[in-house]
């Protein structure tokens, strides 16, 4: 089982490096979807199936589709790889070969034939490393996975951390056992209402920006 987890973590790191450095935008989007799916499996292994479901559906499904739509609407590269009539001047000057040639201009050229990688940006890499160190230190202070007995003893000793409170009181307060849904709707319902107002406003804003009055 430890090999499955190590393989997943290695795949996530490699896929993240490819997403960060590759020039091929369509390949980057597909790789990002695969990375998100691997993270969803990691959530299942960490005993968080609710998060895994939303990660797989939103992260791997809808987000990739939106990325492909944005790519199609901006550069005219479709998901199937064939270009539209609008071919950029750089691609017309040197037609597509099987990778290898570095594109001279700094504009992003998507799609096939634009192989190679971006150069490493050292200040950004230093910033990311500086952010990773406190995150890793925080990870070391987390509790072990699935230690419900430890939570119960902690709650009994009077040291009421929030998750211990929710895990202990969900069943008698609401009558159902899923503490995640209880936190979302019962204990923290106002936050969920605010979230949904944000989503509603986003949909209305899309309609306003696209000027589709014929829908409503």
């Amino acid at each position: 089982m430890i090999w499955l987890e190590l393989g997943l973590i290695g795949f996530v790191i490699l896929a993240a490096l490819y997403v960060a450095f590759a020039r091929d935008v369509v390949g980057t989007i597909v790789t990002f979807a695969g990375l998100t799916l691997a993270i969803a499996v990691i959530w299942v292994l960490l005993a968080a199936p609710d998060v895994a479901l939303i990660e797989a559906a939103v992260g791997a499904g809808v987000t990739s589709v939106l990325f492909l739509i944005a790519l199609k609407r901006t550069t005219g590269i479709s998901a199937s790889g064939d270009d539209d009539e609008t071919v950029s001047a750089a691609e017309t000057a040197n037609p597509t070969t099987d990778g290898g040639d570095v594109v001279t201009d700094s504009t992003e050229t998507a799609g096939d034939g634009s192989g190679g990688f971006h150069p490493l940006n050292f200040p950004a890499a230093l910033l990311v490393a500086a952010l990773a160190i406190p995150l890793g230190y925080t990870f070391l202070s987390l509790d072990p996975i699935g230690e419900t007995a430890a939570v119960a003893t902690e709650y009994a000793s009077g040291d009421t951390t929030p998750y211990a409170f929710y895990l202990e009181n969900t069943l008698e307060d609401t009558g159902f056992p899923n503490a995640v849904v209880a936190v979302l709707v019962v204990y923290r319902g106002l936050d969920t209402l605010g979230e949904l107002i944000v989503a509603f406003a986003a949909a209305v804003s899309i309609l306003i920006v696209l000027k589709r009055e014929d829908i409503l």
Partner: protein
Amino acid sequence: MTDDDIDDVPSDVEADGGQDADEEPFADASSGDEEIHGYASETPDDAEKPDLGAQDAAEDATVKPDLEEIADDPPTVVTQSPVVKTAARMLTPFVVVFGIYLTLFGTSLPGGAFQGGVVMASAIVLIALSFGFEPTRQWLDGRALAGLFVLGAGLFGGIAFSGIVVGDAMLDLEGYPLSVEDMVKLVEVAIAALVSGVIVGAVIWLASGVGDEPDGGESL
């Protein structure tokens, strides 16, 4: 699987192996046909040509396309694979049922309203990816889609503010004739309706015009 089993391709199109430039690809889409299949899979002009050399391709790119030719061009269908279309048509009911299951059983099992709503929305996104975005936008009723998230927001807001009257405070679920679990399930249905409507609307409305000209105002 023979060619006769594929009902997505009209017989005259597969007979000559090419496309009729005069044929309206969405002729039966405007006839109020409720079924999603029946859109002709038109291949773009570039796919018809044999593999040219690089010089010819560069010449083709520099030649300005004829305007009348563009006007007669059918809108590009995202995919033309009958395998993808058949798989999407078979999978969609199961995906929707799984989304409803996640929504209603989220109180006692892994799942919940957000998960169920997104899974239901991803069924429609799967249809849009398989059959093209513009046909899907014509097939869906935009008013029903907008009504979904208006209904979800109204239901959750109504439950939230009626808690002031029925119970002690806002979002108090204990004063209703239903149990707390059933009220939570009602709230979950509202959340799922809003989330699925928002996600389907975002994908379909943002993508409509992929492959042909968007009909909503000027291009961005």
